[in-house]
């Protein structure tokens, strides 16, 4: 198998479960050194533990890869800074950040609470901005020091954001914001050798499988498998994607 990300250091937020876990495993199979970040929280953002992240690290190490677990809250300034520093301290460099972590607090707008709005905006929007900000500063400093930079930021938007979905004003607004963030960040960071793209996945995970009133069929499970999302993220994290920036890739089975 051609290994697209050999030796590249990649941070994946929210990668203890679901789509993020699939990203981390795919990146490791392609030779990446992975920082597996996960707060270990509930779907609604409630606090948890780091064991899902450590479990993914164990899987990567069992297949001969290298990874480290990180339990920082990426929607905080200090947590995001520590996460990026973990990559540099552990593996000596940083090549890509995959901003994947997310929560849901679906509610029709007329019933939505301030807390439900704030929590979703914080995790998705600030949780994309904050790690990207510290990664961008690292790459800017590398570039200004004359070192070659081939950086990647890969964000997670959603069809709920770019097309719209009832009951998700908070989530959709955050995801549309992430698409706009992607465009603008791509313009700002091209000068440092950094590309910024986003994926808009459709997948059945712990976060989404209870949204439908009926259980998913086997066919829906196959079409909603995260395995259809990880390849484009892995490719975008690789050196092969260096000419592509500022785009949103919709991905599903």
């Amino acid at each position: 198998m051609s290994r697209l990300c050999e030796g590249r250091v990649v941070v994946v937020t929210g990668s203890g479960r679901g789509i993020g876990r699939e990203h981390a495993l795919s990146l490791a199979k392609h030779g990446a050194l992975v920082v597996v970040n996960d707060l270990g929280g509930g779907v609604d953002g409630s606090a948890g533990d780091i064991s899902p992240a450590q479990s993914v690290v164990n899987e990567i190490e069992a297949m001969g890869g290298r990874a480290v677990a990180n339990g920082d809250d990426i929607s905080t300034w200090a947590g995001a800074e520590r996460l990026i520093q973990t990559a540099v301290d552990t593996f000596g460099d940083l090549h890509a950040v995959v901003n994947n972590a997310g929560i849901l607090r679906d509610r029709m707008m007329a019933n939505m609470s301030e807390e439900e709005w704030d929590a979703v905006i914080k995790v998705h929007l600030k949780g994309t901005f904050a790690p990207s900000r510290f990664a961008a500063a690292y790459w800017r400093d590398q570039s200004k020091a004359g070192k070659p930079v081939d950086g990647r930021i890969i964000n997670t938007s959603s069809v709920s954001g770019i097309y719209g979905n009832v009951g998700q004003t908070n989530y959709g607004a955050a995801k549309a914001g992430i698409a706009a963030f992607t465009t603008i960040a791509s313009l700002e960071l091209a000068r440092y050798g950094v590309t910024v793209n986003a994926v808009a996945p459709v997948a059945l995970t712990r976060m989404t499988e209870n949204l439908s009133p009926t259980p998913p069929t086997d066919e829906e499970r196959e079409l909603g498998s995260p395995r259809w999302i990880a390849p484009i993220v892995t490719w975008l994290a690789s050196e092969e994607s260096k000419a592509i920036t500022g785009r949103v890739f919709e991905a599903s089975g």
Partner: protein
Amino acid sequence: MLAIAEGWHRGPTHEPVDDAAMLGPIVEELMTKARLNAGMDGKDGSWPQPQPNK
């Protein structure tokens, strides 16, 4: 399905792919079909178009 979004609309599409190593030529083909991002004047392909690593 793999597709490139053109603003609020789905752009060119391709069958789903589960092997990242196959994606280079597929994304290249999609990019030739996708509308360019607009600049601040709202026109396709107007300045600035990022040119990373060039």
